[in-house]
């Protein structure tokens, strides 16, 4: 009788993931038994500490690469950079939430470990090289997000958002599983590299129809997660309903991780199918850029506006993903980082203006902000211009990077749509700026700027400007990440 072989496991390669996960599990217990109800902020600080430790643990791994768990998990610089980005997202989100939760009376200690679990899911998505592992990552992320979305428990809209997200998320998970099953049926493996091998091998018998169906379903799942049109409809509702830090987290985290996984799937497993998925993704990208930006145009609710804007940005990121080259991967990483900083900053400003009693997130809240809080208004202006892609901000550099890459990659017509829609987009970002700078303040609304928020906004705003003026170090880092999953 054959004994079951346990493959050798190199825990070093998943060190950051291990740190985040175990830290979160321990923190859950610590929170329940050791931290009194009125000191829950401490849990938050501990969670940030955990993310920082994970980030530090990852540093010596820069020169390490390899795969483990029977090639189901890989460590390369691509995943390492993404890991850092995800850790930053987690830390900034928690900083935002530290005072937000008590202010809105929804402070529960488990919020912070939950964010850590979500980050763990994202890291897993960046490292996974097997469809099953990717599924694990996606679900770990999604299930935590279902809870986080409904975290503002007594508020109906929050529950509604959680419910919607759950139902549609489960719907998408079904497609994902089915897609994996069909793919397995077609090629007999779920390992990304092996799938590519089977496809390249003329002797192997693959059922192409089955494979295409499977691949489509997998693509659709990610299209849902990153909110590509027409799978985007949940976005405005869910963002509006969920607690604002969670919306901020989702807008950058879910997108970043899902795109990271999608890129790896396309590059490692499905390059042979490019003639099939390229037109499909091209259509989706075009639709997403157009509908996302047009949708944002008519919003008076800032959260919904940012939701649509995040849909539009998914379209731009998709452009970089579709260019399956090293440059494409670089552009993707740069865009993700720039977009992460900018969007988190913008949401932090929204939080500062969010009143406890009647949070309408109306554009009117921004009226005359420059007069009341000049620095806050300046920061928001930086974020808006960065989202709109106006220099000298990181957002412009990122767009420029993506557009040059896509143009070189032969996606000329998509670049055209991208440039035109981002020209259009300036209109609704500008409306916020106009409210802030070209109106006299009205009403009593006073922004609440606690220390966490200020730190968030300062970091995000400073880096957004810095990377716009001196992007070279980031580009240097991103270039060394090569990568491109397979290459």
């Amino acid at each position: 009788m054959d004994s079951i072989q346990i493959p050798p496991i190199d825990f070093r390669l998943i060190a950051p993931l291990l740190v985040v996960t175990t830290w979160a599990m321990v923190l859950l217990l610590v929170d329940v038994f050791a931290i009194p109800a009125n000191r829950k902020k401490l849990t938050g600080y501990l969670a940030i500490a955990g993310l920082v430790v994970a980030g530090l643990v990852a540093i010596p791994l820069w020169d390490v690469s390899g795969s483990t768990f029977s090639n189901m998990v890989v460590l390369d610089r691509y995943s390492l950079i993404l890991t850092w980005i995800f850790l930053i997202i987690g830390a900034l989100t928690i900083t935002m939430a530290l005072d937000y939760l008590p202010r809105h009376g929804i402070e529960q200690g488990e919020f912070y470990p939950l964010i850590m679990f979500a980050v763990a899911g994202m890291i897993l998505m960046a490292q996974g090289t097997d469809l099953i592992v990717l599924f694990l990552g996606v679900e770990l992320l999604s299930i935590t997000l279902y809870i986080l979305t409904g975290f503002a428990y007594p508020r109906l809209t929050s529950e509604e958002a959680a419910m919607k997200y759950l139902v549609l998320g489960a719907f998408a998970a079904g497609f994902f599983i089915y897609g994996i099953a069909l793919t397995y049926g077609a090629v007999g493996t779920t390992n990304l590299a092996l799938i590519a091998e089977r496809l390249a091998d003329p002797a192997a018998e693959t059922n192409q129809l089955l494979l295409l169906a499977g691949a489509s379903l997998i693509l659709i799942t990610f299209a849902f997660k990153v909110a590509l049109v027409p799978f985007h409809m949940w976005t405005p509702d869910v963002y509006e309903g969920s607690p604002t830090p969670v919306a901020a987290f989702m807008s950058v985290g879910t997108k970043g991780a899902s795109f990271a996984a999608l890129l790896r799937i396309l590059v490692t497993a499905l390059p042979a199918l490019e003639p099939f998925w390229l037109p499909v993704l091209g259509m989706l990208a075009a639709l997403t850029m157009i509908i996302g930006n047009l949708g944002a145009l008519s919003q008076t609710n800032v959260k919904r506006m940012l939701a649509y804007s995040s849909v539009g940005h998914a379209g731009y990121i998709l452009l970089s993903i579709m260019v399956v080259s090293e440059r494409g991967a670089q552009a993707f990483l740069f865009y993700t980082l720039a977009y992460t900083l900018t969007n988190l900053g913008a949401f932090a400003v929204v939080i500062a203006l969010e009143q406890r009693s009647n949070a309408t997130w109306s554009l009117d809240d921004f009226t005359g902000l420059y007069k009341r809080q000049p620095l806050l208004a300046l920061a928001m202006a930086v974020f808006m211009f960065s989202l709109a892609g106006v220099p000298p901000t990181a957002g412009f550099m990122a767009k420029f990077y993506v557009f040059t890459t896509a143009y070189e990659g032969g996606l000329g017509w998509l670049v055209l749509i991208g440039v035109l829609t981002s020209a259009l987009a300036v209109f609704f970002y500008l409306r916020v700026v106009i409210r802030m700078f070209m109106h006299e303040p009205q009403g009593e609304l006073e922004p609440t700027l606690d220390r966490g928020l200020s730190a968030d906004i300062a970091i995000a705003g400073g880096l957004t400007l810095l990377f716009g003026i001196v992007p070279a170090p980031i580009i240097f880092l991103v270039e060394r990440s090569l990568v491109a999953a397979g290459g």
Partner: protein
Amino acid sequence: MLNWLIWLIPLLPLLGFLLNVFVIRQERQAGLVASALVGGSFLLAVVATVMLGGMPEEERRVQTIAWEWIGTGTLSIPFGLLFDPLTSVMVLLVTGVGGLIHVYSIGYMHGDPRVVRYFAYLNLFVTMMLMLVMANNMLLLFLGWEGVGLCSFLLIGFWFERKVASAAAVKAFVVNRIGDAAFILAMLAIFSHFGTLTFYDVEVDGQIIPGFLAQVPNLLGQTFGPEWQTIAVATGISFLLLIGATGKSAQFPLFVWLPDAMAGPTPVSALIHAATMVTAGVYMMARTEPIFVASPATQSWVAWIGVLTALIAGTAALAQWDIKRVLAYSTVSQLGFMVAACGMGAYAAAIFHLLTHGIFKALLFLGSGSVIHGTHDTQDMRKMGGLRTAMPTTYWTYLVGAGALAGIVPLSGFWSKDEILAHAVSAGYWPQLIGLFIASLLTAFYMGRQVSLIFFGTQRDPHYHAHESGQAMTVPLVILAVGAAIAGLMNLPTLFSGMPAAHLLTDWLKPVLHEEAGKFNPLLALFATLGAVGMGYLGWSVYTRNAAKVKVGGQDPAYYYTGDIWDTLEAAWYVDTLYQRAVVGPFRSIGNFLAQVFDPQGIDGLVVGTGRFFGWVATGVRQLQSGYVRMYALVFTVGVVLVLSFMLMIAW
């Protein structure tokens, strides 16, 4: 030394901006600091130009790199400045005229509650404009390009209490974004064909980054596009750049934002919307001249767009009542002259006209500001009249400016305009010449009209007591008037053989533009002078004789001759209306439609008044973004079916 000196030129105004944002809270300090720093920049620019002149002609190009801005495997863009003859004259104009306008602003903006912010914006603008003209690559130029657009936006909307101001600001920004989009596409195309975005070869860390301008001949014969209609690459790139220029330099069909931009404070109109920012398009075309020259197709488009703009705006300027709108349309028209000159290959002449126009148009705007200031915010010329006694300095300086604009010999505008016309003759651009000549006649007429309406006759509205402006305002006027009178000296044609100091500017620009000075055409000069004097007198006399008939709500005296055409002119040939109907209206409907159909929870006041059709469809399909999760799942499923069938269809 020049290497670090030129860095100080943009850094001084930047320092002023930072001080005004973070340190200064007092009105007086703000104005002084802002003006002093721009003045300092001007002095440095003079020093730098002199030093540049001391170098041998072929070496007159200094580039310094601060850091490698973007360095990826294939693309390397340095954050570097360039100082060569073309840049030097632009820098002198920006800092010189800009400095005077700063001083003037101290008087003009006195007492405004947000004056510190005003000077901060103004300093930022100068910084960005300097970036634009000193950039050694397209991307940095674009940074300045967007930066000046942003400052322009902020300053047009500066008096946001006036409703029109913020609408005008948005209009300017959005219209400009059309040009910017084309500019970005041009950059992408340049990059993909040359692999670089720097203008000239430059050394960074021991590596030579090639410049693309020298490689333009390689484009010859290269084409792109579908097989049934290929387009030469040079044509494609230059045409995109042209669209970019039409946005920033307010050319047909994108000029509509400039007249509205007059809602900003008058010194802003002088600085940004007359002397500097709007000339950025012309500067950019001169800088990338080899690409334009490589494409005869684009060149003829450039020429015709310029001529058309000069004519449309020149006729529109005839029929305006607002003192600043006359000047605004006049600016558009003169920019048309410059663009036409570029199109006819006379880039040096275009830059010459750019410089003289920068001086005399700034003078005219500041003069109009002085009038507005002295008449307690009156801008309607029908309420003015007879101001020459109350405001003598303003009157005399305005007269000089108007004469220069009209092309009266020997004021500066005559020489620069003549240079363009003479080139049209010698190069045989006859139809364009006729267009430009008519436009220059119109110029003389509307300036005669304006001078008459403002300064002659008797004051038609007795509600204010007109007074001369203070010294902070009149001194810059006088300086600019002197400049407007003598600026022609910098590029006189060879009037007689052996004339010393002829065509200095053309020679100075030779290392960049490689142009020979044009010939002086005495016959043309005679016609032009007679035309200018005649039309100027005609405009003056018609409105002076009929001064009594001019009143608010009444018809223009010229209406008798023109009839309804007058209304067409007043509306600038309804270009703006056309946009409202053909672009803005449908766009709003679509926006409203999308909002109603897909997301009824977020309808904005912006999008009211859709057609019945849209309303009808909207109610039919509105259920989609209804908030019901089953609907979302349904759309999801439809999406799945579509994607699946699409994929499988390809496979078939």
